[in-house]
């Protein structure tokens, strides 16, 4: 039986953001931008969507005089990511069996 894939996570850029944040304590906007090769505008929009879903927290501050945006995954985000991976497994397992 296929499990429904979370539509918030089932998107290239949002999944990449979550995959980075799941393995670190926090990541800055510039780091995520470099790793995902996304544009600043698009990245901001996707971070907002993940934040509104309660999957990440976005903290805007300063590092010296430069603005610095730091993102962290939330407990809810970790749970959603785990469920998404479990759901993906059901698709891949069915592919192997077929």
């Amino acid at each position, binding site marked *: 039986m296929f499990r429904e*894939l979370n539509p918030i996570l*089932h*998107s*290239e*850029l*949002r*999944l*990449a953001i979550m*995959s*980075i944040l*799941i*393995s*670190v*304590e*926090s*990541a*800055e906007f*510039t*780091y995520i931008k*470099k*790793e*995902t*090769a*996304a544009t600043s505008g*698009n990245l901001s*929009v*996707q971070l907002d969507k993940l934040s509104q879903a309660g999957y990440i927290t976005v903290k805007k501050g300063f*590092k*010296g005089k430069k603005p610095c945006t730091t993102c962290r995954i939330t407990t809810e985000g970790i749970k959603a990511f785990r469920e*998404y*991976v479990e759901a*993906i497994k059901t*698709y*891949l397992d069915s*592919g192997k069996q077929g």
Partner: protein
Amino acid sequence: MEEKAINEQESLQIITKMIRNTQKRMVKNEGNTFLIWGYTTLAVTIAVGLAIHFSGNWRWNYLWFAIPVIGAPLNAIFRHNTPKGVRTYIDTVIKYVWIVLGIACFFASVLSIVSGLYKNILFIVPLIIGSGSAITGMVVKFTPATVGGFLGIALGALTLFFPQYSLITFAMIFVIMMIIPGHILNSKSRKMNKTEEASNVQGA
């Protein structure tokens, strides 16, 4: 990357690639923290040794406190100038390990002067800092720091048995425990960054 629909295979590839890249992350000049504290300690040890030798005044031992006075701001400047952009749980563990050990070291140094047990401090400091190096090395899987840390702990005992050579032994310990691992780590990080840049150019 964009906001676009993906299939299950692509999902798995994205997850694997992003997690692997983050774990492989190696920042330029990561060994500089080792080098800053290693060279500062070496310079101060030489200064204390020479000052006491030529003046015969034990009060020159207060110069030891130049280590945190010089090392802490240099380390803070270096950290500020080389932003990582990401903090892992390992980074946090290592940071707190060194904060605790740094405080323990400072406390032991102050006590050694006020209690008159200053000769033992050249054994206690390598014991504490060596433990830090060994823990860091084992956590980040960097053998030179692990070996250097354990050698530091072992060689520190020599300062108790051969007090006449204690300052030279102490200086050598910091070369083995911090300066050599620091240079190896920087060289390794430079090579990895070059390889990464080359693969990025090829991939572009």
